């Protein structure tokens, strides 16, 4: 009888402690589950945006049908950013904050970087 009561009290205590940390555990689990996918979309959206910018500049400098077609293709490719936006909103609805998303993005930069230079590029201050 005493053992059963003691066990019950320990379980309640553990549940209480788990409850205290439950939000943090949930956030960590969501981050772990979506980290690869989010990182992948960060890279793809970044790539799509760069290609789109290049295509716009190319059309501006050399306006012709071929370059106009390539701009259209680059616009289609921006759908990767649509996926990125949707996942961001989904993760925020799960309780992730901007700082959590920024952490996931940095992990993506690290994964795609061949060396420290890409990390520097991401962080260095530039004067326009």
């Amino acid at each position, binding site marked *: 009888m005493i053992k059963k009561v003691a066990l019950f009290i320990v379980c309640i205590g553990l549940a209480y402690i788990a409850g205290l940390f439950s939000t943090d555990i949930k956030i960590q689990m969501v981050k772990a589950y979506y980290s690869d996918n989010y990182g992948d979309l960060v890279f793809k959206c970044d790539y799509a945006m760069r290609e789109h910018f290049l295509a716009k500049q190319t059309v501006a400098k050399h306006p012709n049908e071929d370059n106009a*077609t390539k701009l259209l*293709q680059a*616009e*289609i490719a921006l*759908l990767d950013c649509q996926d990125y936006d949707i996942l961001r*909103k989904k993760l925020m*609805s799960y309780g992730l904050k901007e700082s959590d998303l920024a952490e996931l993005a940095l992990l993506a930069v690290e994964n795609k970087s061949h060396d420290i230079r890409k990390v520097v590029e991401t962080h260095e201050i530039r004067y326009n």
Partner: protein
Amino acid sequence: MRSDTIRILFLAISFLVVTNSLAAVSSNLRSRTLQDAGKEFIFNNKSAPVEINKEKSNLGEKFFEDKKLSFNGNMSCATCHIDRFGSSDGLRNSIGVGGVGEGPERVNSNGFIVPRNSLPLWGRGEKDFSTFFWDGKVESSAEGIKSQFGDSFPSEDPLIVAVHLPFVEIREMILDDEEIKQKYKTETVGSAQEIYEKLVKRVRDDEKYKEALERIYNIKPEEISFFHIADSVAEFIRDKFKLKETKFEQYVFGRTQLSQDEIAGGIIFFGKGKCASCHSGRHFSDFSFHSIPFPQAGFGKNGFGVDYGRFNVTQDSDDIYKFRTPPLANVSKTAPYGHSGSIDTLKEAIVVHFDPLRYYNGHEMTALERNELYKKLLASSGDMHDIAFLDDEEVEKLEKFLRTLSYE
């Protein structure tokens, strides 16, 4: 307690509805984008349907399969254009005269190697199919027909002109024996004409063929020429290999569904991958010439592992290493890929466009081979400048999309 539970359930259901709606909106957007892109890049110009003369086509099929039309060899058109290989022959370089059997069996026989990959025949008879062979040695434009026949081209129809050529190609359908070396290896229109006349005599001597040609073309026996033979073969090609509705076409016009991966692959094809820059139009080819550094398999058209492609036709230095954009109808059936068939799978063919060095091993290449590679990379720099990097998952999705371009 109950109201709390109800509140929690309501929030959970709302959340599920919202996130799934976002996903559905994205899915509908992608679907619409792909359908619009299909109409913009591919199905924007409905070509007039080709009318087929069935009698001609049936006769042409007999010629297509008849080895009698190989001057001194044992070949027919059907030797290198085989149904089970998607109307190609399943080999890297084709094996011409002297070869025995089909497909891989032919490789082990003693036939002459033809230094290019056998092209499939899908859509060749359509009115808008203007440029034939890997190097465009037969092409039709506003200025007329350009081919090895010069001003003596046998027809205004480029398919008929193209059909004329394999019958007089040495090592393809003609054995390079002493008679050929002595009399016909001048590669002039005149020597080709002599070979055509001998082939026509064989056909005229066959009562079945003579009677059929007289009836179909309403001509006398002495009027039978190689044009009639080529014309009927062309009619057969037009008939059997005409373009049909693919799964992708059905999808664009709302008659079927594609899987999520196929849609994603299509978005890559028309978007990030920029495949439609060159693979556009009903045939998924711009019929223009580009340089993508596919590895060279075999001796090459110019020898020692070298193939200069379009330059061999135009002698224009800007055309070096360029080949005609291959059409993509039934592309999943026509492996191996590339002008010399050096690439085995569709997935690898996709990768070569943006990461050709993946299939080159510099350490196993000779210095000459590496030198050739540098030149090919330089020649392709203009074309490759626009091609995007794709990860493995994107390549797989793109491959799935390309498989929707097939039909029976």
